[in-house]
């Protein structure tokens, strides 16, 4: 077992002050205070063997920080993203929870609502709530449709009011089911932020009528998003899910950790393009990978999670089904900074072929690094991490999510934006995606969006989200928030979802309300 390192009393005092501030906060709800207290306590632990040189890159202000561990804490006591096999639970029940297999829709929904309270993650809420149509269809198919609808609607309201974080995701599709259609009807009607939803779409499996129902729901409630099912299957196998923002992960497993490279800041360290590609980027990637290795080692070998948690003991998750996400943000900024250093200030990512090609070169370099790096506990993904285009955090300033074009610089024509995205989406089996606010007039012609989705997936795009430009619930970066709740929070009121605060930050720092409307 690793030995805990000592820390200064000065740091202890500072943390105690933060804790008292948390206790007295007028805007945090009780749950938000408990979560904040826990992470402050965790910040006092020093148990990880931090690679030399990491601190300079990790513990730096946002203008120079090159690696970020996204609030995972100092002593991870569970994997970041946990994806239980809910199908197994509904088939067999759980001895720990003293629940048998449900016999009808009432019992199935009740069982799931109980189970969600026992699924940990970095957010303390379940980041994945199941392939809801497939889970419920056996109970719905023989039932009166309106009765089933009332139950499903109440189920969705329950999730929104008790899962107090919108990094929580349900899946439907690719095949049309009665349950799937009722779910789409419920989310179009309730227009809530939780859970996030994805439709897995495959032109050969998904009926047009089902896709159309999903598009109509998305125009009402900003969900579901659309995942390229064939693409994800080819990379992760048939037992994959979309969780949290848009993360492709193995079912019955998940991801130990997610750290991200802040590419723009790495570019600031470089003398030019070649120096970046051959020296600075490989140096930072190596440190991030070794840091992730160490975090994974602690979770697997020291935390005791897989030995003791009922999810693992009862087979709802298996250690061998976990991988890790090697994330990145700010490709656009890195490209623009490097071109400026080469004396080509006018060329911008999204508007010049030279800039886009440089982006591709950078991604090829990162991809090759990841292919060469091995981790003994990522068997499910061939011993490698999975690349992830991280969507950013609310405190990011001047950092575009993943490989996205900066807001305000989107190409005038959507077709040009999609063409560019098709060159980057394929790098990221554990998630990337783009978001398009849509003009009100499209409500009359939802086939417009259907055609774009079909074309995009033929062009190997991975994941697309749409919302009506006049909608209250909107997609911030990968999660949903209500504009009306941001307003409440801005006025100093309490709101139930902790993600609303992130949305408020992203609105101010990330200009997410200024996306080009299509």
């Amino acid at each position, binding site marked *: 077992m690793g030995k805990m390192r000592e820390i200064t009393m000065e740091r202890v005092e500072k943390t105690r002050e933060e804790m008292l501030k948390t206790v007295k906060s007028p805007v945090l709800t009780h749950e938000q205070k408990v979560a904040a207290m826990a992470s402050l306590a965790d910040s006092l632990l020093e148990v990880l063997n931090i690679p030399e040189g990491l601190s300079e890159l990790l513990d730096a202000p946002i203008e120079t920080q090159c690696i970020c561990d996204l609030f995972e804490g100092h002593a991870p006591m569970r994997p970041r993203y946990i994806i239980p096999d809910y199908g197994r639970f509904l088939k067999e029940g759980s001895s720990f929870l003293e629940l048998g297999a449900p016999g009808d829709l009432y019992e199935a929904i009740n069982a799931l609502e109980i189970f969600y309270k026992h699924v940990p993650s970095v957010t303390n809420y379940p980041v994945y709530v199941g392939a809801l149509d497939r889970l419920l269809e056996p109970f719905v198919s023989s039932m009166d449709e309106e009765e089933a609808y009332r139950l499903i609607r109440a189920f969705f309201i329950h999730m929104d009011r008790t899962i107090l974080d919108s990094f929580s995701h349900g899946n439907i599709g690719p095949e049309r089911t009665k349950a799937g259609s009722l779910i789409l009807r419920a989310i179009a009607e309730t227009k809530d932020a939780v859970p996030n939803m994805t439709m897995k779409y495959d032109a050969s499996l998904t009926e047009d009528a089902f896709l159309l129902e999903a598009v109509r729901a998305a125009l009402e409630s900003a969900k579901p998003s659309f995942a390229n099912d064939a693409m994800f299957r080819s990379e992760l196998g048939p037992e994959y899910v979309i969780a949290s923002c848009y993360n492709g992960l193995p079912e019955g497993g998940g991801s130990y950790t997610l750290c991200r490279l802040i590419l723009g800041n790495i570019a600031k360290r470089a003398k030019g393009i070649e120096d970046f590609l051959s020296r600075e980027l490989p140096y930072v990637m190596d440190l991030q990978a070794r840091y992730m290795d160490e975090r994974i080692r602690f979770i697997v070998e020291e935390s005791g999670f897989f030995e003791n948690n009922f999810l693992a003991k009862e087979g709802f998750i298996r250690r061998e089904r976990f991988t890790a996400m090697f994330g990145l943000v700010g490709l656009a900024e890195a490209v623009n900074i490097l071109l400026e250093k080469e004396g080509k200030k006018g060329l911008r990512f999204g508007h010049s072929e030279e800039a886009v090609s440089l982006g591709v070169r950078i991604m090829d370099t990162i991809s090759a690094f990841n292919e060469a790096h091995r981790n003994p506990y990522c068997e499910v993904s061939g011993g490698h991490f999975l690349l992830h285009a991280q969507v950013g955090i609310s405190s990011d300033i001047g950092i575009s999510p993943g490989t996205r074009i900066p807001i305000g610089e989107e190409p005038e*024509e*959507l*077709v040009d934006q*999609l*063409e560019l995205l098709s060159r980057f989406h394929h790098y990221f089996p554990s998630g990337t995606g783009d978001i398009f606010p849509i*003009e009100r*007039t*499209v409500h*009359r*012609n939802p*086939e*417009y*969006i*259907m*055609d*774009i989705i*079909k*074309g*995009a997936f*033929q*062009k190997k795009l991975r994941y697309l989200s749409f919302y009506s430009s006049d909608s209250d619930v909107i997609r911030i970066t990968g999660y949903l928030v209500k504009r009306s709740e941001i307003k409440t929070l801005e006025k100093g009121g309490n709101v139930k979802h902790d993600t609303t605060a992130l949305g408020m930050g992203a609105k101010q720092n990330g200009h997410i309300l200024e996306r080009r409307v*299509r």
Partner: protein
Amino acid sequence: MRAPVNRIIPFSAVDGPGNRTAVFLQGCNFNCKYCHNPETRKLCIHCGDCVEDCPGGALYFSDSPFPSASRPFPGEEKQESARTAPALSSYPFWGEEKREGISEERERESPHSGRWVLFSPEKCIGCDRCIRICRHDASPRIRWMSPEELLRELSKNRPFIRGVTVSGGECTLYPAFLRELAALLLSEGLELLLDSNGSYDFSEDPAGLLPLLSGVMLDVKAWKREEHERVTGTGNEDVLRNLRSLLQCGKLYELRTVVVPGLFDYEGCIRECARLLRPYPEVRYKIIAFRKNGVRAEYRDFESPTEEEMSRLLEIAKSEGAVKVLTL
């Protein structure tokens, strides 16, 4: 064979079903008082008023009617001399009288007589200054494109679109171009819709367009002949004949009427149209409220109908038998 292309919108959600590329051809044989894009009505006469003031340098004079980088139109090499180029002499809708009027105007007003105004799209900053300067209801930002060139330009929009809609101006002024384009699109698996004022004779269909089209969107701008003359400057016998024959052959995708209070009896027109649609529940009837944007200054005094009036018209259309009615 070429047609003057004013604008191409790669993705459009409002020009027919699904996602479509919308192509706007230049030139129209109607003169609707409420025209929302009057700059598409006529062809450029190359007076050159707009060239000097073009901030991006996208407009320029040339001794040849063709951009230097491109070859003359295929099969039209003989017309390369400026004097016999197609731009001024071969517009099908341009009567002798008008043509003379224009050449006179050129003599009188254009210090650049004999030279051609050409357009480099890549330099255009989209300020629309040339359109505001133009005194001829035209636009110098025209590309004479062949169906093949148009198809090449559309290629990047595939596979995101299900079809193409050609609008205008009045696209049926170029029937041979449309036929060739429709055939090309069909071979590529893309459907073609036309947006027409109904002046082309679809009942006789001399150009053989209908078998190649997935449908037509037709405007009925007034029901009574004298009112149609007041609104558009021409009679509507052709429009109404087309309306009936397109309905019968199943090629009417959408019918439209623009509501302009005070200009004509729109309620009567909507009633007549809706009655005709009764046996055709699949045909959409779009009732559009007049709006001032883009309309020429001398016609801007018309008022938009109120929302209540539009809802009333929607109900009237439904009560007369139209099934798919929407207001815009």
